């Protein structure tokens, strides 16, 4: 594939890939749902529980100190990974969804007034729609939707017209989970800022593929999940500009997030702890540090190169199948291909492909408004990671063509 990456060595780093499913070697093409974990991440998790397990930040003993140091080390790794100015602007959450809800319930609740506008796009995942609907209902703010064209590209001319002084927040994904479009976030952010609106970027589908520099892009909020970046589930990141995070009221109350508590009143802790009430997901945060190290050892750009080659290879192959239509043909895409086959329900293809050992995703991809836009009940979606191979795509194609014949 014209890459210097040694694919067999890489695959050996991911133990889960080496198995038979329903009698065939597993082909894992559901990376947009969650990525697999390298052995270093699995080992870090196991090592923590075997040797370092302790509650963090409060204990004086050695284990507590080791756990705290390892936990906070991940925060600095995330800071560097995002090119953030300081690690106290890195808030640990349980995932992208939790990060968006945090911003909606703190920034949103304290900022939105009746008649204010929240702009989201037609490409959004439900997790970047519903939290805004909930806070809009409470505050009287209005949600407007940036339209998307037939190919899956956002209509920026329409966006510019929608942007007025009533827009307080623009919340868009960096990359569409359902069809793979890479959105022009630099442009979106600068247009929004010119009108005084803040911007939240949902990076769930981009962090594993595109180098993120929150300062260069002048991001107000950036959220993502560790499990889509080869890390554990149950860990997410919220990055925010300091003045925004400082001004936001606390989210959940409890331990960790306080400075002093008395029955006459409580003072809150500083960033980032103000937003981290309760004992956090210590083990998974520590293991996430190992995932960042792993990705950095190759570089996001290298991974993307490998994936783009897979995208081009699979797009060509799929286009040759009669009756198959690719949904989402934006010029800039990550390695995600959504498709439908005439006369066949996506679910039927998903069931049969699984019998061939191929894991794909079928359905509405938690993006029902986008499916409605295209008049579809759902699609089949294959999504690649850098550990996938063209040989796997060839075997997938054989399974797909056989499945289509069986259903036809």
């Amino acid at each position: 594939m014209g890459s210097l990456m040694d694919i067999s060595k890489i695959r050996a780093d991911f133990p889960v890939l080496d198995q038979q499913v329903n009698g065939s070697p597993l082909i894992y093409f559901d990376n947009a749902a969650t990525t697999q974990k390298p052995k270093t991440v699995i080992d870090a998790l196991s090592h923590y529980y075997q040797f370092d397990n302790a509650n963090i930040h409060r204990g004086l003993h050695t284990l507590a100190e080791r756990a705290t140091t390892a936990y906070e080390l991940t925060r600095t790794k995330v800071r560097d990974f995002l090119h953030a100015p300081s690690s106290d602007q890195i808030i640990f959450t349980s995932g992208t969804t939790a990060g968006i809800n945090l911003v909606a319930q703190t920034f949103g609740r304290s900022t939105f007034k009746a008649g204010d506008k929240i702009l989201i796009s037609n490409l959004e995942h439900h997790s970047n729609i519903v939290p805004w609907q909930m806070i809009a209902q409470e505050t009287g703010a209005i949600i407007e939707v940036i339209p998307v064209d037939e190919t899956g590209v956002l209509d920026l001319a329409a966006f510019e017209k929608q942007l007025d002084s009533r827009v307080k927040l623009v919340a868009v994904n960096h990359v569409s989970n359902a069809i793979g479009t890479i959105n022009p976030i630099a442009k979106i952010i600068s247009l929004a800022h010119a009108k005084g609106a803040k911007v939240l970027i949902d990076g769930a589908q981009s962090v594993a593929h595109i180098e993120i520099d929150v300062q260069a892009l002048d991001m107000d909020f950036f959220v993502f999940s560790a499990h889509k970046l080869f890390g554990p589930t149950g860990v997410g990141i919220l990055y925010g500009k300091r003045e925004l995070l400082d001004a936001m009221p606390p989210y959940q109350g409890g331990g960790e997030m306080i400075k002093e508590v008395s029955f006459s009143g409580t003072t809150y802790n500083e960033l980032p702890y103000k937003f981290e009430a309760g004992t956090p997901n210590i083990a998974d945060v520590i293991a996430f540090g190992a995932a960042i190290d792993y990705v950095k050892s190759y570089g996001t750009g290298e991974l993307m190169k490998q994936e783009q080659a897979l995208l081009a290879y699979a797009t060509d192959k799929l286009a040759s199948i009669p009756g198959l239509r690719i949904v989402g043909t934006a010029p800039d895409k990550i390695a995600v291909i959504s498709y439908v086959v005439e006369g066949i329900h996506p679910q039927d293809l998903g069931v049969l492909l699984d019998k061939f050992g191929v894991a794909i995703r079928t359905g509405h991809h938690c993006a029902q408004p986008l499916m409605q836009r295209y008049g579809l009940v759902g699609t089949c979606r294959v999504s690649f990671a850098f550990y996938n191979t063209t040989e796997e795509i060839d075997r997938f194609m054989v399974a797909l063509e056989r499945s289509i014949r069986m259903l036809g």
Partner: protein
Amino acid sequence: MAQSINDTQEELIAEFDLFEDWADKYEYLIDLGKKLPAMSEEWKTEENVIKGCQSRVWLHAEREGELVHFLADSEAVIVKGLISMLIRVLSGHTASEILAADLYFIDRIGMSQHLAQTRSNGLLAMVKQMKNYALAFSAQQ
């Protein structure tokens, strides 16, 4: 009198035993799905949709004296195949027979994966809804 629920289950098990590999079994299942008589559009109501399925599934039940008859349809042909077997096994029996039925054939023909909670194809939901109809009818008696 119609044959018993377990007789029909045994019949289905014998039919699937004719096939050695999974692909042949699924081709047969798909064939059953294609042969399921089309459901009249008047029954394809929002009320008859079974929730929790990735494809839309409609199920309607009617009573004829003591006996319960099911009509069903789906957008997905494998789901239709599964429904067609459920109808063959359960339709035309009394509400109490349907409520008491242990649907062991699903496992024996190698389709138990469709009963798992993660499979949002709703075989579990279909069985539950069929039993719900039976329960409702038996309460009316």
